[in-house]
């Protein structure tokens, strides 16, 4: 078998994505040249995607512990405590590269992969979210990508049977050659039924379970660790093909197998497939593993050991069971008509031995593969463009003559417009837990058998991150936490998906370093631990890097599900208050982009202490039943936020808003964006109580108007700045996405 394999040379190592230095390091570690299969193992496990070579030094700065954390980073997914005997597991992951090459399957398998990460922990998935970024919405290629990606997510999630609870869809020309497809999954697990990806107990059998192995996806991890050139289309064979039906069977079979008590550890075969699972599982447990590849169920003939180890065929797991209980495992999987084959056993010596028909093809210390990839601290350099971007003063541009018209244009722009066209293609209710569907600030799920609910969101404003990586990333955390706060939830933890260009460019690595520092600062100040995540580098095509996107996925707890709130006004006569500071900026705003096609300027300042007080005040008012609605004030500023509160609910309601005569320009005050701001509506009978409660929090806030009528009227210093009828706003907002994109 090995006789047919190519001879390993430096050239071959370079072609497989390793550097010359890394190749030397492998030879030194093994004390010999690696075999062809061994080279494949190293190239996959030491790829950026699996080893975090360029990011690891920076990620160490993230806070990962806290009273609610049951599992931090390093496992398939993080876990936080929900109180009682339940816990929540969640993780976000990118599938950017595959989705560009083949949008439908790329996005579908992104969903499949993140779902497996959740149910390997012993959890039943209860929600997915998707954070998507595409090129300009007027680019015809964008349309094809949006349709492909959305239908891929729809197909996989719907067939599998998990509700979609939200996410984002954003557009910027920098994503034209590199769309971002980040999928987050959330699962519910009993604390005494948490499983980990560890190969414990020498002598225990190793089972391969799930779908058969084919040649699809070989080198997917390596592909995700390089930038794109014109040849991207030729890489279609590296994209895997999904089968949500098999995944559903795998879910049920895995949970049933876990319930028998015979399962000791389990890992998803995702990136780098068997290679990754067979080295990481023993590495975590301080054991070794031997496997016989001829036993691996295969759907193609003549596959080489190299191909079998590196295949990224979907819907497969590696499972370690208790010796003597093999039959229980086999019976469970047979009931679900899935393969469950014993392909090897756990050993004590820390070595991974891979054989094909009894002949050894690889013999490598598991730690060398899983833990000893080089860690780089590559140079970073503040890009020259940062100062130039910050210099720009948006107020040097003329103010719009028609503020109402500008508002309607913003409401109809695809970044702000209703995303109903997207989410009506997703099942949002299966599992009958959904209390708040997509379309409000956060999705909310009840926890059956308790009075609690869980709120989930994903957020990132990549224009902000581009203009100021540190503040922009901190604002992503702040916005996610605010979206939970306005729903009535207290954040329990976050997962991050860090999408950046090539880390080998000092400017990009500087963006990364700054962004991670910003995430860390915000997480510390708001006391939200990072429990897992994913780094996606090399999001570049032909040297064009994306706008950096450290996407934050966050989950929080609502103690009384009944107290949850949504973003839309509900009752005529309710009083409207604005919580938070007046500091806003048109720098990096949606308005500046839509009206003037510019991404430039300075961001409004972020005061994390004040941010936190706003969240606390908001949660306290919601828990006390003093507010009828609460909405995060973000993209599009105060104007868009008020409009959304008027038109996004089941019934449209107008509002009359009176702002003081300020020294600022109207476009800045109405469309300027800044952190820490929330709009709430308060029933008249609760006004006094609300005022007293706000007095307990040291934060700026004021009444700005009342709900009612058929028009959104905004006056400044007694003069009417705009008066826009509800149906005009609603028409623009409801049809905007489809008109531009679909």
């Amino acid at each position, binding site marked *: 078998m090995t006789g047919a394999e190519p001879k390993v040379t430096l050239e071959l190592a370079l072609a497989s994505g390793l550097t010359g230095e890394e190749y030397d390091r492998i030879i030194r570690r093994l004390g010999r040249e690696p075999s062809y299969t061994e080279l494949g193992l190293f190239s996959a496990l030491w790829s950026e995607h699996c080893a975090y070579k360029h990011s690891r030094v920076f990620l160490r700065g993230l806070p990962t512990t806290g009273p609610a954390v049951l599992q931090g980073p390093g496992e398939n997914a993080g876990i936080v405590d929900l109180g009682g005997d339940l816990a929540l597991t969640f993780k976000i992951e990118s599938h950017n590269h595959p989705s560009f090459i083949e949008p439908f399957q790329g996005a579908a398998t992104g969903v499949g992969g993140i779902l497996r990460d959740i149910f390997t922990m012993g959890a039943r998935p209860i929600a997915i979210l998707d954070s998507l970024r595409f090129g300009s919405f007027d680019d015809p290629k964008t349309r094809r990508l949006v349709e492909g990606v959305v239908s891929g997510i729809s197909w996989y999630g719907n067939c599998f*049977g998990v509700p979609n609870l939200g996410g984002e869809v954003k557009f910027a020309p920098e994503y034209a050659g590199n769309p971002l497809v980040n999928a987050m999954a959330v699962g519910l697990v009993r604390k005494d039924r948490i499983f980990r990806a560890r190969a414990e107990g020498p002598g225990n059998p190793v089972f391969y379970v799930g779908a058969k192995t084919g040649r699809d996806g070989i080198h997917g991890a390596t592909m995700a660790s390089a930038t794109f050139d014109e040849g991207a289309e030729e890489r279609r064979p590296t994209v895997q093909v999904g*089968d*949500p*039906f098999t995944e559903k*069977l795998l879910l049920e079979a895995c949970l049933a197998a876990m319930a028998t008590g015979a399962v000791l550890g389990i890992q998803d075969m995702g990136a780098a497939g068997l290679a990754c699972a067979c080295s990481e599982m023993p590495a975590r447990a301080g054991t070794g593993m031997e496997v016989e590849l001829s036993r691996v169920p295969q759907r193609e003939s003549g596959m080489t050991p190299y191909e079998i180890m590196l295949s990224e065929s979907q819907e497969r797991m590696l499972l370690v069971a208790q010796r003597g209980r093999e039959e229980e495992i086999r019976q469970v999987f047979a009931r*679900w008509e899935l393969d469950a084959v014993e392909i090897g056993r756990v050993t004590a010596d820390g070595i991974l031995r891979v054989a094909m028909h009894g002949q050894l093809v690889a013999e490598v210390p598991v730690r060398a593969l899983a833990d000893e990839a080089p860690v780089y601290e590559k140079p970073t350099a503040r890009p020259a463009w940062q100062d130039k971007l910050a210099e720009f003063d948006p107020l040097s541009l003329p103010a719009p003559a028609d503020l109402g018209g500008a508002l309607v244009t913003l409401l109809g722009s695809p970044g702000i417009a209703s995303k109903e066209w997207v*989410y*009506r293609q997703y099942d949002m209710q*299966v599992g009958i837990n959904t209390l708040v569907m997509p379309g409000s600030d956060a999705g909310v799920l009840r926890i059956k058998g308790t009075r609690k609910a869980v709120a989930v969101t994903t957020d990132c404003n990549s224009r902000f991150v581009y203009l100021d990586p540190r503040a922009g990333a901190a604002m992503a955390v702040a916005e996610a936490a605010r979206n939970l706060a306005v729903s009535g939830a207290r954040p329990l933890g976050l997962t991050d998906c860090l999408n950046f260009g090539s880390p080998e460019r000092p400017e990009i690595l500087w963006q990364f370093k700054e962004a991670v520092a910003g995430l860390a600062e915000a997480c510390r100040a708001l006391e939200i631990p990072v429990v897992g995540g994913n780094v996606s580098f090399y999001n570049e095509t032909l040297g064009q890097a994306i706008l950096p996107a450290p996407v934050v996925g966050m989950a929080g707890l609502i103690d009384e599900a009944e107290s949850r709130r949504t973003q839309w006004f509900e009752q005529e006569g309710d009083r409207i208050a604005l919580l938070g500071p007046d500091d806003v900026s048109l720098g990096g705003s949606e308005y500046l982009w839509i009206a003037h096609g510019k991404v430039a300027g300075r961001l409004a300042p972020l005061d994390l202490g004040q941010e936190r007080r706003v969240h606390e005040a908001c949660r306290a008012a919601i828990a006390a039943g003093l507010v009828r609605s609460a909405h995060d004030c973000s993209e599009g500023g105060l104007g868009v936020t008020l409009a959304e509160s008027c038109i996004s609910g089941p019934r449209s309601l107008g509002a009359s808003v009176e702002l003081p005569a300020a020294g600022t320009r109207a476009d800045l005050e109405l469309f300027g964006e800044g952190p820490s701001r929330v709009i709430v509506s308060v029933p008249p009978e609760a006004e006094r109580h609300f005022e007293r409660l706000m007095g307990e929090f040291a934060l700026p806030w004021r009444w700005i108007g009342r709900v009612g009528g058929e028009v959104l009227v905004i006056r400044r210093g007694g003069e009417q700045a705009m008066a826009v009828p509800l149906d005009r706003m609603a028409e623009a907002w409801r049809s905007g996405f489809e008109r531009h994109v679909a």
Partner: protein
Amino acid sequence: MNFGVVVFPGTWSDCDFHYVISEVLHQPVRYVWHRDSQLADFDCLILPGGFSYGDYLRVGAVAGRSPVVEALPEFVAKGGVVLGSCNGFQILCESKLLPGALMRNECLQYRCQSTFLRVENAETSFTRAMRQGQVLKMPISHGEGKFYADAETLRRLRDQNQIVFRYAAEDGRVVKDANPNGSLDNIAGIINEEGTVLGLMPHPERASENAMGGTDGLLIFHSLLGSLVEDGSFLKR
């Protein structure tokens, strides 16, 4: 009343029906595996939503030939009733327990949304707790829910009052705009000639609690509970 919720590989509304029947209605309920054909213990069997066998062939085609479905004619002949929702309706059509077929939505996309249904026949075991012409709110979630039947079948469905639910506007008007999938004649649910097998695309189990946005789905269960008489048979009218 003894409910059975059938589980095929790929079914996903099974747990939701089970939850509503046991936790909301407090009735005895058990899962029924697709290979089982011993159905004598049950009064009502439910074929829930999902993607049985991935729906990789035609929707419902493989499940329509499973042991449990093949045992259904005998089950209803002995007095049982069958409720198929979503994929369950597709399976009932595939197995010829109900006439017609369910095809790809006219918009060619999956649709998950709230719909309004007008009750067209309130005199069945499944609808006796409703009023003729009553408008119910119930969500749909499917990619292939466009009901089709040939002219002769449609005429028979109409003549024999077998059309039980039609998609309608909130005020009960049966109009094209209220039809989410292009169904023939706005048909959302039909019943067999004997009144023992009901299929509908909407999800009653997702409309059975106030927390989920409404309880109109419960009316189906209440109808069934009110139809079961002491000797274990169902009132057909």
